[in-house]
C-alpha cells in the first residue's frame, strides 16, 4: 500500500519523530501511521540506526592548552595595537598571566591593612574549633563535587550528547 504522505511531509515527520521534537498530537498521529505503513516504519528503523551511529561518533576533547594559546594570541594582537602607556595602565582581571600581579597587589593591601597581633586576634584563633574546620572541609566537598560535574570529560573520553 502506498504511503499517503508525500516525500517532504514524510521526511519532516520522520526527523521530528526521531529527534522527539514533534508536538505530542503529531507524534501520536505519526505513530498510528507507521503502524499501518511499512514504508515509513522501515524509514523510522533506518533513521534510528543512523541516529545511533551518528551518536557513536564522538569528537575528541579540545587540547588542555587551547584557551591559553588563544589568550596568548589575543594578548599578542593587543600588544601590537596598544600604545605603550596603556599597557602599564591596563589591569586585566581574570587573565591567568596576570593573576600573580593581582595576588601581589592583594598581598600589599592585606599587609598594609592587617591588624597587629592582639589579644583579640588570639581569641579569634582559639575560637576556631575543629568542628568549624570541618565545615570548611564540607564546603570544599560540595564545591569539588560541583566542579567535577562541570569539568569536561578528560582526554581519554568524550562528551556524549543525547
Amino acid at each position, binding site marked *: 500500500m502506498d504511503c499517503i504522505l508525500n516525500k517532504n511531509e514524510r521526511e519532516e515527520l520522520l526527523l521530528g519523530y526521531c529527534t522527539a521534537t514533534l508536538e505530542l498530537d503529531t507524534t501520536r498521529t505519526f505513530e498510528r501511521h507507521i503502524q499501518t505503513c511499512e514504508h515509513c516504519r522501515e524509514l523510522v528503523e533506518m533513521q534510528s540506526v543512523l541516529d*545511533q551511529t551518528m551518536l557513536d561518533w564522538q569528537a575528541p576533547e579540545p587540547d588542555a592548552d587551547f584557551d591559553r594559546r588563544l589568550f596568548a594570541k589575543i594578548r599578542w594582537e593587543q600588544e601590537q595595537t596598544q600604545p605603550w602607556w596603556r599597557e602599564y595602565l591596563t589591569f586585566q582581571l581574570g587573565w591567568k598571566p596576570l593573576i600573580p600581579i593581582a595576588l601581589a597587589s*592583594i598581598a600589599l593591601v592585606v599587609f598594609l591593612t*592587617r591588624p597587629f597581633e592582639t589579644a583579640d586576634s588570639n581569641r579569634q*584563633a582559639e575560637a576556631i574549633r575543629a568542628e568549624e574546620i570541618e565545615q570548611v572541609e564540607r564546603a570544599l566537598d560540595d564545591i569539588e*563535587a*560541583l566542579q*567535577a560535574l562541570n569539568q569536561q570529560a578528560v582526554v581519554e*573520553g568524550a562528551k556524549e550528547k*543525547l
Partner: protein
Amino acid sequence: MKSLLLFVVISSLGFAQGRAVDLIERLNRMSPTERRRVLDRMPPARRQLLENRINNFNKIGPEARQKLRKDYEYFQQLSPEKQDEARKTLRQIADLPEDRRQAVRGTINHLRQQPPELRQRRMTSKGFEQRFSEDERKLVRDAVALLPDPATPQD
C-alpha cells in the same frame, strides 16, 4: 601566602553567604602565626590536604571559577534535604565506571543548558533511553532537577 591564596579563592569565587565562608575569611584576618597555630592543631596530613584543596582552586581558570561560583551559590540556596539529595546523586555519578561517568556528566551538562521544555523532550526521547541504563537515566534526571544551570532560565 596561604592566606592570600584563601583570600583570592574567596574573592574570586565571590561567596556572599555561608558560615564556612565566614570561617575562611576569619582565617584570612589572622596573622600568619595565629593561623599556623590554628591549622597546626589539625593532624599534619589533614592540614596539608586542606591546603592542597585550596591551592587546587587557584588553578581553576576564571571562566570555570565563575561558573562554579554560580553553581555553588545556587546549591547553597537549596534546602538541607535537597542539598543532601544532590550530594548523594553526585556521589553516585562519581562512583560510575569512567566511561559511563563521563557520558552521564556530559549529558547532564548538556541538558542543564537547555530550556526546561526541550530538556524534558530530550529525556523522554528514544535516544536517551537507548543511551543509558535505567539507573543512569535516573541519575541524569535527578541531577538536572536538583542542579539546573543557574544561567539558564528555569520557568
